[in-house]
């Protein structure tokens, strides 16, 4: 479509002037038609669903199709009325329309659901109940506990970072079979966390005859129940998650190490620095920007942690290992309570946005001070 309508002269001062008025009218007409169509379908559906009219569709699916058609019309309108500029806009439009439809609308809808009492399994439907969910959330000890666990889980990132840095240094040293080790170290990242939680959480760490439990007994831990005591259960979850995600940070840090200029290291050696000094005074400061990126990305992924907890402990013992996501998941699965669950999720979203914004500010200042 874009190819056929491309304007002849790319060097014109204002390509919009070259577009014939008829083509512009066509573009505007198309857009107007599509907008009217979309609005008409929405109005018809609302009237039908609120039982004010008998004409309408059983589901809202046609509205989705209408939105897609409207998006196409919008693109055509851009190309027809703005020529080359419109073609440029066409690069961005699909992703933009997609993300807006998939994020903005559901999030706004979510804020509305959060203010309702809505049990999907009951027939009474949704009831607007204002801030009731919010007050219930403030008094919910399990939610607070889940938030506290998230703090612990996020702090565990720094231990993962130390290990990942060590592994990256090892891989960057002069070794044989580097490629082999790199592939092996990367492997855990590729495995599905759900499969991993069975492989490690439910079989290796199995109390009676899992090899990890046997090993722990040999090392003098008489009662290696990894998931029955709140503290060991949390540590076990952290270990499981670390096992999958350490390669992620390791690869980023390795890339940083390989991009480092050799001259600096040579200079440090000539100046008579020991290996230890070289690391702390040259390598580590130079690696700080990469480290900050890796740690922040990892924290962002950590904040989504859910699958391992759901499949290994389902939050137990007594909610001790719950992350916010797994808690909300169970809240919905056990009680079908969409309203309250959404309120918890929205509160979490606000906390995350504030936290990550602060983190990015803090990190940028931190990096600048060093350089």
């Amino acid at each position, binding site marked *: 479509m*874009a*190819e056929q309508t*491309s304007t002849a002269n790319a060097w014109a001062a204002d390509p919009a002037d070259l577009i014939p008025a008829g083509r512009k009218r066509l573009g505007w007409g198309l857009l107007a038609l599509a907008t009217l169509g979309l609005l008409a379908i929405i109005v018809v559906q609302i009237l039908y669903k609120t039982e004010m009219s008998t004409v309408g569709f059983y*589901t*809202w*699916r046609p509205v989705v199709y209408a939105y897609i058609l409207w998006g196409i019309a919008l693109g055509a309108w851009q190309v027809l009325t703005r020529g*080359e500029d419109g073609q*440029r806009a*066409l*690069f*961005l439009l699909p*992703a933009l329309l*997609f*993300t807006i439809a*998939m*994020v903005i609308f559901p999030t706004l809808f979510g804020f509305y*659901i959060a203010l309702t009492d809505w049990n*999907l399994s009951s027939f009474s439907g949704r009831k607007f109940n204002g801030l009731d969910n919010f007050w219930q959330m403030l008094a919910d000890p399990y939610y607070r506990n889940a938030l506290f666990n998230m703090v612990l889980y996020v702090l565990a990132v720094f231990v993962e970072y130390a290990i990942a840095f060590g592994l990256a240094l*090892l891989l*960057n040293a*002069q*070794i044989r079979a*580097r490629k082999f080790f*790199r*592939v092996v*170290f*990367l*492997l*855990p*990242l*590729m*495995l*599905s966390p*759900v499969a*991993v*939680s*069975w*492989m*490690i959480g*439910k*079989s290796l760490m199995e109390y009676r005859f899992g*090899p990890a439990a046997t090993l722990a007994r040999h090392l003098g831990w008489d009662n290696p129940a990894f998931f029955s005591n709140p503290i060991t259960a949390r540590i076990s979850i952290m270990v499981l998650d670390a096992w999958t995600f350490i390669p992620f940070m390791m690869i*980023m840090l390795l*890339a940083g190490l390989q*991009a*480092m200029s*050799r001259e600096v*290291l040579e200079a440090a*050696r000539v100046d008579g620095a*020991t*290996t230890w000094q070289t690391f702390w005074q040259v390598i580590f400061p130079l690696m700080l920007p990469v480290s900050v990126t890796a740690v922040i990305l990892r924290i962002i992924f950590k*904040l*989504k942690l859910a*699958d391992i907890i759901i*499949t290994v402990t389902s939050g137990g013992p007594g909610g001790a290992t719950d992350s916010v996501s797994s808690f909300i*998941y169970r809240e919905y699965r056990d009680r079908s309570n*969409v309203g309250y669950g959404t309120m918890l*999720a929205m509160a*979490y979203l606000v906390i*995350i946005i504030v936290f990550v914004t602060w983190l990015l500010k803090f990190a940028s200042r931190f990096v600048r001070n060093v350089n």
Partner: protein
Amino acid sequence: MSVQTTDYTVSEIRSPAAFITSRVFIYGALVFWAFICLFPIYWTITTSFKSAVDVTQGHLIPFVDFTPDWKGWRSLGLSPDSIFQTSTVRDEFLKRFMNSVITSVGASGLAIIIGSLAAYGLVRYRYHFAWFKNEDISFFFLSQLILPPVVLALPFLVLYREVALLDTRIGLVLLYTLMVLPIVIWIMRDQFNSIPVELEEAALVDGLSIWGAFFRIVMPIALPGMVAAFILAMVLCWNEYFFAALLTSTDAKTIPVMVASQTGSQGINWWSMAALATAAIAPLAIIGIALERYLIMGMTAGSVK
């Protein structure tokens, strides 16, 4: 990623004894971590060939400790002697497997298409939609990365029910596309930034349109980056559990949901669970080993300048 050898870790060592110590330490640590990475996988694969006694007695080495048996694979209908017989478990497994393939390939493909286009536009042209400039639009896309799935999950549950997308593969494809889109845009922006703008200018002078230049000149150069983004997106979609667990029930269930539902039931058969877990991780493990270069390229995009 080019592999350079930087040997500063050994450059300080002067005496042969210290050199040997450091070698021993380095290789010891490497082998130790390789063991940590590989043992769970080894354990899972061998367990799928064990019988109950071998599991409870903690036998580890096939042929020495225990006699391998196709038990686990037979229960999945995938062992040599049962592969030609009808098996409901195998049909179920293959259905879930196909669901996983379709959703992850579909979502990664869709994300690559719209993500690359958007990344290219953002790198090459100046936009202003109302008061939004390029930086704001980029930030809008990348900020989706911090959105936890749990925020969208429940609204989508309700919305998908209304538009009849609940428990469909299309529904999952759309959500997964949303999930990997920021990562794709992040990688592809980096890719397009590294392509000199003169190439496209020359193409435009030669009479190609903007889109012609993109498809004929830019795309072929950026192809490795696209492969990298595609592989990374594949890994994320294949392993996704949260949305799949909430939004699918019978038709569109994916492999992780199937694995998780097996672990929940009482009295699991270790050998069949192990076989299932092996089958679930095998495709990605193979892809990962074969295309490791692209995976690393995707993960390191933009982080090292």
